[in-house]
């Protein structure tokens, strides 16, 4: 009896495994989502088809096995049969799976060809991954380009503040795309391999440095869609989310026009700031803000870095010695070794502020002040 009960437990365990999975279909936190594009719905249907085929195979095979385990026990007096081969059966269970495979392969091939057809797109966006942020550039509106960084506060990650609803899945500037239009993504990387993934679109494509991959989507419903980098890309791989807002075409047009205008204004503003001198306090305040978005992940809040990969700024020659100011600016604009270039991400006044901050924070009391015009002079001097 004890044997039978242990057997039943193992049988139930296997069955309950598949039972949980079957109820999973209705709930999005245990199953694939249907998403908001025709493709993602097809992918979901394929997934469910495969799932049910697997469940049926599992139930039949394990069912026969468990039947045998109960009925053909030595303790029930079962005597072993003699057979050990049967050509008919063996051919049958080679051919039948083969036919099932063809039945699976056909719809899969159809969907795959549709997914890989990036022709006739209406909007093209260049997506560039770098450690650990995304950059979006609207190819049809070349003025509009921006970086998208995770917006979750460090204090939430360190369990000092309560975690928000979209913990780790929120960014400062989401990508905006129109609904009902075929949007093509050109995907690449500035450093290591990343992977741009939005589950609701069923789009996941690797961002390979030096090469450009293509993907596309056509979103049916306006909304905010969240994803993450899917390829291990170093220390903060878990902290580079993707957020896409899909807007109605009219709204999108208004948005992109406003962005274009804002981009032009920002350039004018930058020129205006070149003529101004900021005070030490202003520089330090803005510098700290910039440092906490762009630099802190590697060089750490205390400026001590994580040597040897991420060197310390506190007490370093580059941040202390006066003749190193040009080099200091150079590293931020153009990068060095593993350090990415921030020239595209930060404005000249932001670079000036963060250089000043790094030269005067954490006991680096050099008193050096760097202004936007110094950064401009450095760029032009090159």
């Amino acid at each position, binding site marked *: 009896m004890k044997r039978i009960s242990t057997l039943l437990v193992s049988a139930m365990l296997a069955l309950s*495994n598949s039972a949980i999975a079957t109820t*999973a279909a209705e709930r999005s*936190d*245990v*199953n694939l*989502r249907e998403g908001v594009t025709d493709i993602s719905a097809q*992918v979901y249907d394929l*997934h469910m088809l*495969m799932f049910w085929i*697997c469940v049926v195979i*599992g139930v039949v*095979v394990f069912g026969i096995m468990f039947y045998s*385990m109960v009925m*053909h026990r*030595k303790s029930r007096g*079962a*005597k*072993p*049969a*003699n*057979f*050990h*081969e049967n050509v008919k*059966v063996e051919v049958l*269970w*080679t051919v039948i*799976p083969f036919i099932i*495979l063809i039945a*699976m392969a056909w719809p*899969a091939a159809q969907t*795959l060809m549709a997914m890989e057809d990036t022709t006739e797109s209406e909007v093209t966006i260049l997506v560039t991954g770098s*450690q650990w942020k995304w950059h979006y550039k609207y190819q049809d509106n070349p003025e509009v380009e921006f970086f998208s960084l995770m917006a979750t506060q460090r204090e*939430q*990650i360190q*369990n000092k503040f309560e975690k928000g609803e979209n*913990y*780790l899945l929120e960014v400062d500037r989401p990508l905006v795309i129109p609904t009902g239009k075929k949007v093509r993504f050109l995907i690449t990387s500035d*450093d290591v*391999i990343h992977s741009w*993934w939005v*589950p609701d679109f069923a789009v*996941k*494509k*690797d961002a*390979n*440095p*030096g090469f450009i*991959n293509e993907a596309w989507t056509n979103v049916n419903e306006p909304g905010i869609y969240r*994803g*993450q980098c*899917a*390829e*291990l*890309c*170093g220390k903060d*791989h*878990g902290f580079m989310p993707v957020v896409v807002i899909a807007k109605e075409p009219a709204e999108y047009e208004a948005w992109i026009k406003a962005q274009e205008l804002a981009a032009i204004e920002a350039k004018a503003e930058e020129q205006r700031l070149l003529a101004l001198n900021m005070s030490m306090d202003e520089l330090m305040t803005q510098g700290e803000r910039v440092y906490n978005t762009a630099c802190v992940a590697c060089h750490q809040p205390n400026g001590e870095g*994580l040597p*040897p*990969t991420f060197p310390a700024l506190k007490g370093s020659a580059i941040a202390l010695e006066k003749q190193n100011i040009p080099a200091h600016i150079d590293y931020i604009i153009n990068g060095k070794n593993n350090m990415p270039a921030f020239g595209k991400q930060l404005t000249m006044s932001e670079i000036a502020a963060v250089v000043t901050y790094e030269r005067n924070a954490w006991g680096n009391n050099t008193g050096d002040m760097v202004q936007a015009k110094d950064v401009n002079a450095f760029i032009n001097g090159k």
Partner: protein
Amino acid sequence: MSTETATNTQDTHADGQHHDEHHEHHIPTGLSRWLLTTNHKDIGTLYLWFAFIMFLVGGAMAMVIRAELFQPGQQIVNPEFFNQMTTVHGLIMVFGAVMPAFTGLANWLVPMMIGAPDMALPRMNNWSFWILPFAFLILLSSLFMEGGGPGFGWTFYAPLSTQYSNDSTALFVFSVHIMGISSIMGAINVVVTILNMRAPGMTYMKMPLFVWTWLITAFLLIAVMPVLAGAVTMVLTDKYFGTSFFDAAGGGDPVMFQHIFWFFGHPEVYIMILPAFGIISAIVPTFSRKKLFGYASMVYATASIALLSFIVWAHHMFTTGMPVAAEMFFMFATMLISVPTGVKVFNWVATMWRGSLTFEVPMMFAIAFIVLFTIGGLSGLMLAITPVDFQYHDTYFVVAHFHYVLVTGAVFSIMAAVYYWLPKWTGKMFDVTLAKWHFWCSLISVNVLFFPMHFVGLAGMPRRIPDYALQFADFNKWISIGGFAFGLSQLIFLVLIIKACKKQGEPVSDQVWEGAEGLEWEIPSPAPYHTFETPPVVK
């Protein structure tokens, strides 16, 4: 039940035993016995102990990972160290635990199964084991370097492992080289032994399936370990000697790294599962008291899987941006693998059908293997479907899949093998109560550990992240609890093995298990230090 013994105690071994005693005078004792040994049984024992220690070390790293992921937010380790843990955990489990365990089993069993006195190349055998501890010492010591150990994943994709890695990469490369040399030497030894040292009458189609699967595995190893060596060497020269194999700026291609790596990596997956098929094909007939169903088709299925393993590598890379024709090819080729794999599962079930079943501990593990490995195989079939793989790729669904195949597949088969042959090795029945505790604790906890990973993966949790969004929190807590329980369960196994090595327990007969057949069950228990010095004749 498990201690049931065969009644035909054989006296005919008296001669052989006398012979063995004569030899035992020459066995060195203490440390030098183990350092200098060329005996296949000693080397098998060394491999198995090494694999078990590495299993515990790699398991401890998994505990760190699961502790960090117990709840959202940064808990006990920083993201850099977290990446080092996932990387080294993977390397240790693949190269330090599963592969050496199978090599240990091959050392112990292949000569005994084919009626050979030892492995064909005993001194090389000694060396192929003794370089392994140094390989892992190098790898593990890199964790204590300034800047830490390798943190680019066990798959070490370039350029994360080249321009963007720390200096422990050099140590990583050298240790992988040593592991590769060890594997290749072990594989050559297995091939030469099987091809040349079979007893008279032991034709190929009479070899036990464990021997067949290992023969095919050894050929896979010889074919792909040099490819891995090439990949790590290119990483080394890209990082330190200015080459640009994987750097587009110098005319290279980072995706080429993945092609090379997975050309090694996919056959590697079968290297870790084919010997498991051999083990299950030995255990199921014994406890069904019935011949294995479809012996010949098992051999052909194993060979087909091995051949197919060379043409499916890019299914690990569907999102890298391949041409659609290539995606189609690799999708169809991958789906094909399920046919021979299915044949194997059907054969095991047909072997049990109308048998006379008993459920001793090795059989319990074998049945768990069949069910849980098949679950891993079915999720593998789902992953083969390219358009859906775009959603599954690099999520916890993949983590669930390969842990079902490698933990409840490969590792469970190794445990089944140890329980099956341990009495033959020690001459004593192991502690059956402890073994059953080990089985049930492992079975339940391993499913609490890995099954919910399917759910979080489908719901969108990427793998290799040190922190996750709040909707994944509940399942991750359960996964971690399952992980700690599975880790602790293995300590039961440790106690059991130590007791067995101290030769505690009831003496067993030569046949040990009522339905066991094969040459290894005809020699005395415990197996003498030297066996089959005069080859047996197989009818």
